[in-house]
Structures are given as C-alpha cells and as structure tokens.
C-alpha cells in the first residue's frame, strides 16, 4: 500500500470527501495538462503522429510531448498496424510505463485490424485484445486534428482518476478491458 493510497483513504473518510475531491481535482488537472506521449509508431499512422507533433498542427500546445522512452511517458499512442511479431514488444513497453498510464488506439488497424482484418495471418485484430485501451480514434490514417481531439477527450478520463484506491467511475468501468490472461494488473 503506497503512502499515497493511505493518504487518499484517510482523506476519503473526512466528512463529504471535500478535501479528497479538491486534491483529486488539482492532481488530475496537472496530469491532464501535461500528458507526455510514447509514440508507439509502426506504420502509416506514425507519419500522421509526426505531422501532428510538428509546427503546422503543433501537439505541444496541448502539453503532449513525444518521448520515445516508456519511462518518461503517461500515454501510449499506438499508431499503426500491430503484428503478431510486434505484440510482445508492445505489451512489454506498456508494462514498462509508470502508473498512471493510458492508451490511445490511433487508426483503424489498432482499433480493429482495419484494412488488414481479412486474409492476413500475422495482424493482431485490435489492440484491446491485449492492452487496456482508453480512447479509440477512427481513420486510416486519422487526421492530426482528430488525434489531438483524442488527447482532449482523454483529459475527461484523466479527471476521473482519484488518489484514493478503488474509486473507479462508471465510465472507466464501461471501457472494454482485455481478458484476464493478458490482463492489466488491475
């Protein structure tokens, strides 16, 4: 039990949870404003992810800074087709990211296998078969604006995190999570 969990639990017991919600609001606001992205770029969506982070669409104004190192990042942006050979690497990189972490599935290939759904023997049909995905972006490849809109939507999810353990909003419960065997250490 980390120190923060005990503090969260203690704050939770205060009458009306006023202090906990205000601390949560501050913590979630600061996390939401600086979601550093781990660009898991494999295919064409990586080109759009690069275009989104450069001067014309400028991801940095949303506080999203692409860092190619899982240790420094909060959001893993899966950009591009995931093949069977790449799946263990993506899973390991997700595990190596520090908590709290989120996953954005960018492009049809990561959402459901997309154009490579039929007749392929080596494509993973959807990243949520082995990763807990939070935001799905449709498009092949999606426009940089829709990618940036995904980060703005992700802030709503970030706002629902709480430092007190065990508080999960119904929206987070409703999200599809991978089956237990490849399960997220919830």
């Amino acid at each position, binding site marked *: 039990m980390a120190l923060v969990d005990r503090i969260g639990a203690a704050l939770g017991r205060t009458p009306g949870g006023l202090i906990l919600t205000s601390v949560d609001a501050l913590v979630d606001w600061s996390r939401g404003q600086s979601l550093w992205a781990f660009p898991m770029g494999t295919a064409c969506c990586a080109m759009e992810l690069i275009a989104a982070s450069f001067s014309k669409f400028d991801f940095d104004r949303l506080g999203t800074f692409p860092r190619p190192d899982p240790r420094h990042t909060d959001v893993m942006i899966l950009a591009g087709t995931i093949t*069977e*050979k790449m799946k263990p690497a993506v899973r390991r990189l997700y595990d190596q990211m520090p908590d709290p972490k989120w996953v954005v599935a960018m492009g049809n290939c990561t959402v459901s296998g997309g154009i490579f*759904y*039929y*007749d*392929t*023997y*080596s494509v993973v049909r959807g990243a949520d078969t082995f990763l807990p995905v939070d935001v799905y972006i449709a498009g092949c490849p999606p426009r940089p604006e829709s990618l940036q809109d995904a980060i703005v939507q992700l802030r709503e999810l970030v706002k629902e995190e709480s430092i007190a353990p065990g508080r999960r909003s119904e929206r987070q419960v409703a999200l599809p999570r991978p089956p237990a065997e490849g399960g997220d250490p919830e």
Partner: protein
Amino acid sequence: MAHHLSRLSTDLGARISERFDAVVIEIPAENLLRAAYELREIGFDRLGMVTAVDLGEDFEMVYRVTSRSLSSNAFVKCRIGRVDPTVSSLCEVWPAANWQEREVWDLFGIDFAGHPDMRRILLPEEWPGWPLRKDYDDPNVIRRPDYI
C-alpha cells in the same frame, strides 16, 4: 542479344522465348547455378527480383536480371517439385539474392542449397507452416466474404 544466349540453350538445355519487354529463359533446376554464372558473364550484372509462384503441383522460381551494358532484361524461370523443394542458391553470383532468398524460404519453404545464412526473415522463428503456399491453412485467418 539472342546469339549471346544461344550457348545457354545448347549446353544447358534452356528454352529461350522472346517477349516484347524481356527474354524469358526456362532452365532445368540443376543447371540454374551454371546458367547464372553464364548470364553474369554475358553482362547481366543486376539481380532485380527473386520470387516463387505456387503452381499447385510444383513451384516456379522466377528471377529477373537486368543488364545495364546491353540495356535488356531477362526472366529466368525454373520448376521445382513440391516435395522437399530445394534449388541452388545464387548468393555467390549476385549477393542481392541473399535476403530475397531468405524471404522465399520464409514464405514458401523452398530451401536454397549453399545459402550463407538460411533463416526466416519476416515471420517469427517458430512460425508454423509457409504462408504463401496455396494449401496454407491458418485457423485465425478470416476469409474475406466474396461479394463479387
């Protein structure tokens, strides 16, 4: 161009046919290596493509070679049986064949005798079966419904 190749057909048993864009040379598989050396002498110094086609009862190896000096292209085709298919590797003639032969081994299962580093190149090492063969069945491949 044709007289260059005439020697090929006489002693190597090659059937040469001319198409409007390239010369097609059909070679029995055992003479492939000597034919390759012969072609390089003639001037075909670039190996463009190495691939295989699964014709059902046997495989057809297709090589495409280009000659910059003669500015002409040639297809070299040879048939190999379906059971334990092996063909001699052309790595020592054209090093460009190295990776492309590894890819044909990876997707078709055709072994190349004399290849310096015969490993799978695209699929994971322990991948069952050879995907590009016509009789490759994989449980998690979902066939596309035939609208047309």
